[in-house]
């Protein structure tokens, strides 16, 4: 097991380096000068050059990239061009908010998705099943930013149940978590349903039924455990989707998370910050998938890691 994890991690290194290289190339292809973004409307060529020198932007690109890689390998992501704050600190300050949003959204998604999935599977082909599956599919189909805007209008302004935007208290997190969460709930419900249906037909479930266990016990004890596999898969698959969703959700609800930080960094051409955020999310994604794969092994001994 440990050997497996170590090997996976070693294999990830070239992937991570590749991601930073892509980011670096992209940043340098993108028109727009970070220094011009900084100095504003009265640009003075001398000042611009001075700042470029300070930030190391006058060095050859190869040197700039290698410097970044070597520093990053030592855990130093550099300082933001704009604020001068270490990039790691800026990420550290914003990531918890995104994590909170993600976890609350997952919570909404799992509670809603798993319960709808179970009921649908148990009452297969019922009206509930049909309508829920259609609602779930519609949920996947709706653009998240649109749902967010409409939710703001209805629940924030018209009904006044939740704060409209910003992030100052737990209450501010409810609406965004629901908006982002219901989206994932839809996929989880669909997968839970089909996984459960798959499992229900398996031999050992029939055996359990034959042993006279009540239907409820059968579902909960045996079936649900196995049905967790797709749920975990979805969580893994949607790790990157979550960040995507959070960029849009965070912009609409004005939540100061990693998503908005990355947008800001990109529009300010804050190279070190963009590099840092991309590197960080790539690592999160890789680790997340590793955890998902490991949890498979725990959930289903039949799946062996190789």
């Amino acid at each position, binding site marked *: 097991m440990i050997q497996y994890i170590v090997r996976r991690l070693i294999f990830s290194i070239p992937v991570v380096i590749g991601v930073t290289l892509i980011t670096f190339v992209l940043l340098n292809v993108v028109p727009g000068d970070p220094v011009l973004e900084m100095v504003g409307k009265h640009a003075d060529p001398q000042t611009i050059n001075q700042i470029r020198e300070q930030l190391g932007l006058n060095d050859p690109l190869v040197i700039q990239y290698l410097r970044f890689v070597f520093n990053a390998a030592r855990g130093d992501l550099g300082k933001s061009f704009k604020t001068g704050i270490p990039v790691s600190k800026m990420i550290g300050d914003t990531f918890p908010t995104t994590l909170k949003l993600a976890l609350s959204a997952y919570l909404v998604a799992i509670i809603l998705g798993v319960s709808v999935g179970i009921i649908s599977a148990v009452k297969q082909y019922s009206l509930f099943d049909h309508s829920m599956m259609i609602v779930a599919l519609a949920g996947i189909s709706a653009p998240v930013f649109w749902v967010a805007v409409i939710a703001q209008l209805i629940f924030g302004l018209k009904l006044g149940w939740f704060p409209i935007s910003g992030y100052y208290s737990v209450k501010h997190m409810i609406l965004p978590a629901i908006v982002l969460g219901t989206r994932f709930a839809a996929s989880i419900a669909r997968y839970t349903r089909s996984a459960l249906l798959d499992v229900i037909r398996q031999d050992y479930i029939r055996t359990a039924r034959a042993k006279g266990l009540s239907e409820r016990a059968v579902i909960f004890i045996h079936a649900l455990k196995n049905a967790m596999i797709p749920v975990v898969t979805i969580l893994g698959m949607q790790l990157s989707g979550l960040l995507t969703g959070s960029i849009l959700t965070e912009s609409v609800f004005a939540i100061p998370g990693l998503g908005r930080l990355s947008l800001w960094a990109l*529009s300010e051409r804050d190279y070190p910050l963009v590099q840092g955020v991309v590197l960080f999310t790539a690592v999160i994604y890789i680790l997340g998938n590793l955890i998902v794969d490991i949890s498979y092994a725990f959930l289903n001994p039949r799946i062996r890691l190789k």
Partner: protein
Amino acid sequence: MRKFLLVLALIVVTVFIFAQAPKRGGVLYDYWTSDRMIFDPQEDTYLQTYGMARLLFSTLVRYKGETLELEPELLVKMPEISQDGLVYTFELKKGIKFHDGKTELTSDDVKFTIERMLSPKGRGASKWLFEPILGATAFKNGESTSLEGFKKIDDYKFQIILEKPYAPFLQNLAVPAASIFSEKLVKAAGESWRLKPVGTGPFRLKTHTPNTEIVFERNPYYFEPGLPYLDSIVYRIVPDSTVALMEFEAGTLDVVTIPVLEYERIKKSGKYNIIEKEALNTYFFIMNLKDPKWSNPLLRKAMALAINKQEMAQSLFGPRAVVAKSFVTPGIPGAYPLGEGPAYDYNPEEARKIVAQLGNIGKVTAWQSGGDTLSQANIIIQAMAKEVGIDLEIVPIERAAFRQARNEGKIPAGYGNWWADIPDPDNYIEVFFGRDNQMSSGYNNEEVQEMIEKASIEVDPQKREEMYRQIEYKILREDVAIIPLFHLKYLLATQKNVHGVIAHPTGITLYLYAYKQ
């Protein structure tokens, strides 16, 4: 009995006066659509950072209330100017303390502030403010270690000597970028200065939660007794202006910029105070004289005649916009009075005639700088150009890229706006049409550019104003290098209990005298 009545009357009057007097205390909630992240007005020239600078710092001179008239701020009185317009003598108020309550402001801080901006090693983005000072160029280029034109007399008195006369110099000193810093505190803060500003202004920075909110609290050591009234000001970051309006209507914001289409509804509701105020800006369509197509003066004239400014202004900004006849905003000394400028009026027949005369010119191009409020205007400009037969293609370019191209003079034409830093024609004309300008105007009329240089150093105010009107006539009427479209007013709404908010023409909302009833 009479005595009693008199006392009663006195009481009534006093109560009445006190009821009207500003109340101390309270928290005001305002918002910004984005977080600039830093607080150093020498480094960042956004109006937003300038707005914060007016809370945190003080300048030597400032505008009186909402006027364009200067008054001393850190100074005892307005500086004395020598006959030749070269030597300015200043005297600082004594005992002005920075936010830490200990550090006292002296002449050395002023020198430090100016040199910091000009320093070849620094990040000063508004060097132009102090460039008229004697020796500024040498200092800027690292050829001298001390600014020649700054003469300290004692801790509170100093002189600034200019290289050549420059009438608007005092106005430069009122720009928030010219805020006075403390040498000791800036040096002590080092790299973190831009995040932890310490000034002499009415408020000090309490907390900054990036992309969430910035909290300012009353500066207990503020040098003007009794001010400010508010305990604190909270700027929330609300990226979307629709959301901001929703928040305002829900009562969670005290001030909001009213979206144009919502103006009637907000005003009619009678629930809010409305602030309307002219501001120093001009929205325009500028054409690059070095562009192969726009270099044709007839094409530029046709374009100027094609735009129905009235309809455009009305539909874009409704009650916020006033049609522009000149580039320099009316109200500034040296500008044409409102409605009397030299720009061409809408005349589609004439425009069509010129286009016919031009023959086949094909597609002409303009650029747009990202953002979507601009695109509304561009859609209208495009449609109006089409009406007279000009096939105008508008290419949107992402903001940062656009800025770079503008710096390099590569933008063929485009809709844009200018919010002046100081109420002086030089800040419009020189910036856009002077030699080596960075506004991508491609302006190359040698004769006019010489006139611009002469006007800027003219000492006689009346003569100077006349010169600028002549220059503007040439640029707008003869060369048609720019088409002024309209000027925009401020349109703010505040909650009913908010008073004393000043919307200054320079584009900055001032809270020094604001209070909540």
